[in-house]
């Protein structure tokens, strides 16, 4: 197998991690919606924490994407 083909396979394998990230982000927003539905007054308190959680989980997605790009273009 030449290096070019191995790069493409490696990059494809690296994005498997995004499965867990999709689950995580869906989890965050589902809990956010449930908690606001139970107690609409808490929206302003809960929403920033939800966004913080989203950004931190997104960071893990980008770690995986970073590895994929490093394999493809590095």
């Amino acid at each position, binding site marked *: 197998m030449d290096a070019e083909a191995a790069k493409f396979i490696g990059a494809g394998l690296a994005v498997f991690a995004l499965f867990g990230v999709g689950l995580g982000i869906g989890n965050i927003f589902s809990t956010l919606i449930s908690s606001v539905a139970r107690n609409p007054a808490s929206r302003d308190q809960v929403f920033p924490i939800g966004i*913080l959680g*989203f*950004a931190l989980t*997104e*960071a893990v997605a980008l*770690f995986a994407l970073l590895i994929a790009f490093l394999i493809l273009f590095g």
Partner: protein
Amino acid sequence: MAGPIEQFEVKTIGPQINIGGLDLSFNNSALFMVVAATLAVVLVLAGMSRRELVPGRLQSFVEMLYEFIAGMVRDNAGAQARPYFPFVFTMFMFILLGNMLGMIPFTFTFTSHIIVTFALAMTVFVFVTVLGLVKHGLHFFSLFMPHGAPPLLAPIIIPIEVLSYFSRPVSLSIRLFANMMAGHTMLKVFAGFSVSLIGLGAAGVLGAIVPVIINIGLTAFEILVAFLQAYVFTILTCLYIRDALELH
């Protein structure tokens, strides 16, 4: 035609300045850092120049920005962190303007280089560590032994806590760098799809509308991510300051 990686190339603009083997010439990264810093200073000074009691648009915008970060410091770093507000505000403005300037076409995103974000994260890490050591002396190391944990588990817990403490600048820097680099690379890749689909002829032109629409959505998403990453960097800085000041 350039691929998606050429946008991150650092190009020298001014005269070559080589001091002791280090290339210190003015380049596009430095140019945009100067632009971001100047823009931040001019924005705040111009906004507050006419101190009206009922603020106009620019003063209102600067006041909202101030109150946003002041509220964040108050809520997340604690009341004793008030003297460190200028540091947090400067970090936020620099990173926010750096990210946002990169969204303008043909500009350079200086936060998309790991060395820049690593320098910013190490500044925060060293600042917070020195703050904790100066305030608490050697008692600062009780940070690594959480309160309720049984002392028998200390040989396991303390190395894990130390490792996670040292992973803070790493995660802080890689989060910002990876978001910026991956986002901008995605934008260029989808733009490349549009161009290569047009090259296929008439049917390709109609099909090329899809990547353009995706690119519009991605640009909007990238602007959101630019703001979000500056917010996350700043709020984590506030949390680390609180950890250093209150030790639990």
